[in-house]
């Protein structure tokens, strides 16, 4: 009976392709939108996740996410260093600055100041130059996308030696780094902490964060709790702080709602296309099923036929949809707006589950119709 089921399914090419296309479209829409949503949310924490050396981030208690900085007094660094279990603690500057190029163009950049001594906080992958160039006078390094954005006339790696100004202070591009794309798509500029605090407008405090490494055998979470208890500052593990930033954007912006609506629409449209097409496919074949029942096919055999047909179109449609989604992210890997967006395995399985449910509902609805078919239908003209 399975051979007959498959021949019935593929016999009408137009209906068969409509079914496969419907499922592939739904799969693509869901997996692509969910992947972009996850990628976008991950970007909100990318500047935290990129600093792999630090186990704990220490900040003002009022800070809610990574882009909202309330500077700490310099003495906070000493207090953190004095907490038991801290292997090292370094200052970290994060703020916004205006970069003026010789042509007079202004660009807002995300300015990152890394520890002068250890360079902790700087990216580890350099496309041009290396970590040591940040020690040179007036040195600045940009992320590749940022460099290309500010100087679109040349390749990012060819911006070495370009000059610009930040608050009337000369900076010279000495390096180009590979950094994760941030949520706010300003170019990221890296320089030494002392230099960053020197060229930015004077304020009472300037130290944005203290980055902490836990001593050997120390639990980062326990250390963070100890730092909070002993200093009165807010201390979060790297992962907790990353999640804090993600959660902030999830709860305080319209992004999840907008993406949620798009994903829900994808599911509804996909389910409607798939369920309706499959249902119509079965309904249009009712007379054939009726004929099979008349000549001796049981309801069980017919049910297996319908479920097999549903499973086959579901598997092929899902495979095509996921394949196109993967291809999309592969091809768009070089597009700055989509950099770092990938099809995660969780999305792969999650979409499979949703498609499975859609197919199951469609086939169960159709089965009820098939079960009710009176074999005598075949005698009615």
């Amino acid at each position, binding site marked *: *009976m399975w*051979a*007959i089921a498959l*021949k*019935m399914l*593929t*016999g*009408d090419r137009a209906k068969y392709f409509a079914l496969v296309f419907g499922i592939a479209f739904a799969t693509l829409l869901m997996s692509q939108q969910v992947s972009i949503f996850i990628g976008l949310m991950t970007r909100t924490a990318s500047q935290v996740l990129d600093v792999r050396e630090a186990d704990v981030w220490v900040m003002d208690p009022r800070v809610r996410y990574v882009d909202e900085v309330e500077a700490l007094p310099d003495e906070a660094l000493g207090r953190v260093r004095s907490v038991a279990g801290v292997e090292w603690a370094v200052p970290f500057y994060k703020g916004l600055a205006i970069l003026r190029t010789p042509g007079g163009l202004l660009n807002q950049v995300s300015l990152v100041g890394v520890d002068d001594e250890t360079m902790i906080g700087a990216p580890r992958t350099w496309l041009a130059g290396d970590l040591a160039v940040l020690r040179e006078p007036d040195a600045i390094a940009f992320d590749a996308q940022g460099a290309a954005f500010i100087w679109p006339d040349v390749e990012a790696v060819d911006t070495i030696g370009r000059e610009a100004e930040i608050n009337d202070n000369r900076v010279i591009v000495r390096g180009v780094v590979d950094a994760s794309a941030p949520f706010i798509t300003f170019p990221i500029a890296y320089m030494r902490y002392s230099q960053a605090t020197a060229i930015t407008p004077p304020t009472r405090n300037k130290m944005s964060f203290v980055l902490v490494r836990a001593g050997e055998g120390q639990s980062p979470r326990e250390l963070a709790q100890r730092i909070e208890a002993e200093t009165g500052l807010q201390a979060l593990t790297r992962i907790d702080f990353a999640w804090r930033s993600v959660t902030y954007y999830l709860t305080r912006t319209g992004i999840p709602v907008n993406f949620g609506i798009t994903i829900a629409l994808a599911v509804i449209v996909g389910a409607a296309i798939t369920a309706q097409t499959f249902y119509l496919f079965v309904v249009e074949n009712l*007379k*054939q099923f*009726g*004929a*099979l*029942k*008349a*000549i*001796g*096919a*049981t*309801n069980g*055999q017919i049910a297996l036929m319908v479920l097999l047909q549903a499973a086959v179109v579901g598997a092929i449609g899902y495979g095509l949809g996921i394949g196109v989604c993967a291809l999309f992210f592969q091809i768009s890997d070089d597009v700055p707006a989509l950099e770092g967006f990938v099809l995660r395995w969780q999305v792969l399985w999650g979409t499979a589950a949703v498609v499975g449910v859609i197919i199951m509902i469609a086939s169960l609805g159709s089965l009820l119709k098939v079960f009710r078919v*009176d*074999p*005598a239908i*075949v*005698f*009615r*003209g």
Partner: protein
Amino acid sequence: MNVAVQASNIDMEFGANGVRSQVLFGVDLQIEMGKLTMLVGPSGCGKTTLLSILSGTLTPTRGDVDVMGGRITSMKDRQNVEFRRERIGFIFQQYNLLPALTAAENAGAPLVTAGMKLKDAAERARVVLETLGMGPHVNKLPRQLSGGQQQRVAIARAIVHEPALVVCDEPTAALDADTGRQVMALLKDASADPNRAVLVVTHDNRIYHYADRIIAMEDGRIVGDSANNTLPEGIHVH
């Protein structure tokens, strides 16, 4: 006399919610083996309903039907299906072939429902199709066949599993006169088997002469029965 079908006091009503319409009224009937029996009458007289009941695809409101000694009106659904699968062959007015299957695969379908692999069933059906003059067309799809050829495939499907009863609903209605005669000749041959009965519902008076017996119906009742190929006395069917 070897009885293939014995129907007793068959009533059939359709409808629901208090609005019911009776289409068969106390029908009593016997069909014998080795004969081609025709059930004739005007449209709407209940022929097809009676055929559906006799073949076990419809349950009567009242009455009993025995086919080859088995009381199909008392069988459970599963038993009924298995009985139909093994003992009854069907030929429909609109052929009802599966469009995606070849002629041989269509003809072998009853064997597949009984558990045989499609390939093996088609191989066995090929032999039957060849005896019906369909040798060159066994691998064609229904849409590549003429109406007469499709009806031959339907005949092959009806007899491939060697059933004891073959029921045919207006088998020549969609065919031209010549093709209709060829199809009836094949059914006549099939009925020659002493272990098989062929029951044909028709109002095509061009094919009456193929009958061994003609039963006439009108308004849900049997109104005439002749033991030859002529209409019962006083019966006129238009």
